[in-house]
């Protein structure tokens, strides 16, 4: 009904970028515009801390460019346990249960991150349930993949 008001505009470069991200892959153009308006873009220098182990998580991050590393303190030594490339997400547990961060994340190289805050995701659940459910489904899939990968790694480890 309101189609005449929907200006046919060229897609912004950032929308084109977030369309490529797995988390938002199932969203339509209008839904992507809603999400785009909720994302905070942050720039980190190599070595800069994104969040610390034990922090109260307030946002999920998607790596738009660059790489980040996940660090854990093992026997008082800080060890890199994983690297997250462009297009992948991290910190998603903050959106689901607001639990404290379980590891430290630092920029492995200069990177640009998009952050979706827990409060905005909560509002999305109330006001744009369809978008929030699509994101939640993608989050569940992502967590499933991570869990499977961890099982496979554990099983292939020599006894």
């Amino acid at each position, binding site marked *: 009904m309101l189609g005449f*008001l929907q200006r046919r505009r060229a897609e912004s470069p950032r929308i084109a970028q977030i369309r490529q991200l797995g988390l938002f892959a199932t969203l339509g153009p209008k839904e992507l515009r809603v999400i785009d308006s909720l994302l905070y873009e942050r720039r980190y220098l190599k070595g*800069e801390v994104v969040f610390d182990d034990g922090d109260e998580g307030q946002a999920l991050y998607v790596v738009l460019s660059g790489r980040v590393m996940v660090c854990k303190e093992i026997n008082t030594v800080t060890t890199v346990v994983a690297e997250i490339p462009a297009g992948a997400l991290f910190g998603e547990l903050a959106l689901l249960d607001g639990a404290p961060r379980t590891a430290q994340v630092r920029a492995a190289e200069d990177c640009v991150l998009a952050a979706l805050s827990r409060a905005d995701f909560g509002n999305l659940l109330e006001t744009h349930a369809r978008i929030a459910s699509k994101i939640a489904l993608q989050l569940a899939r992502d967590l499933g993949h991570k869990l499977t990968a961890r099982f496979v790694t554990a099983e292939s480890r020599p006894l």
Partner: protein
Amino acid sequence: MRLPYLASGPLVWLTTMAITTVLLVASSKALWLVVPFLLAIILYYMLYPVVRRLVLSGVNRETAALLVAAGVTILAVAVMVPLLPWLAAQSLAGEETMYRYLAGGRTLIDRTLETLEAQFSFLRRLNFHAEMGKMAADFGDNFLQKKIGETLLKAAAWLPSLLLAPFFAFFLLRDGRVFVDALASGVPNAFFERTIYMFHRVDATARNYFQGLLKLTVIDTVVLTIGLWLVGVPTAPVLALIAALLAWIPVVGSVIGCVLVMLIAATEFPTDPWIVYATVGVFAFARLLDNFFFIPLTVGRSIQMHPLPVVLMVFIGGTVAGVPGLILALPLAGVVSAVVGTVGGIVQDPRLRARHAYAKALQKERVSVDFGL
């Protein structure tokens, strides 16, 4: 183990109260700007759900804000145009009507005192009627009549600035998120998550307070309309709405509303004081319902502060900024409390400060790499 997200305690209370007081004093110097801004915020929270719905249906945000603003303007004009002749007549007769109601109130006081003197002989011996009647007359002649004139003049001076409210509301609806993004972009990475949490708390405090206030106004209007209609007070819905709007002023607002309706009832029914007493009963009952049921369900817990600083802030607001100060004190204290709590949490967290210092060092190293420092 990390420190709590939000700092709390007496120091945070004192800082919150001090900053809120300074802001209230500053706002009392620029009421022509503060009052329309306050109305704009209320309009924003009323209209935001409509804009959001339009955005979801595919309309871009700018157009959605424009459509909603245009719709509200057309609606306001459609409502106001038929009312203008009536309003003009009322404003011309406004002062005269007020004096008539004041006279009605004095008649009620006289009759009540007479009845009391007739019932109790010790009041007769004290010459109670004459003394109290003199005090009431002095109060009416010297205080109220002057105040009414001053208040009407001030209200007339503010009217043009109130036209700013729809403009402010429109820009908040259109660019609200742009303001938030601009503020967030200036925040160092180390404090980013705390800051977005603070934005959320500030928004939640203001939204819950003002939307709760609007719901409470509707509920109060309905309850008072039913009560006043049962008592037999004329134009019950209009008086109920005015009284419900006056209740926006904490503590004293509902008393002013009650006195206003009492004066009208006393003037309209000079021979039947029981209608006035029943009116007081209706207001007392509505107040009880508010305190026990409706306020906890609406405005209730929007201001996450201890009741002691909340009550103090209401009185300080009234002292430093008058009626707008009374209305502003609570939401402003809630917002300042969220900001002070967050900033306090950052200041008390050495890890966050260390992360910020490290990021600055990285930045410095990067920009001075060719200096060979």
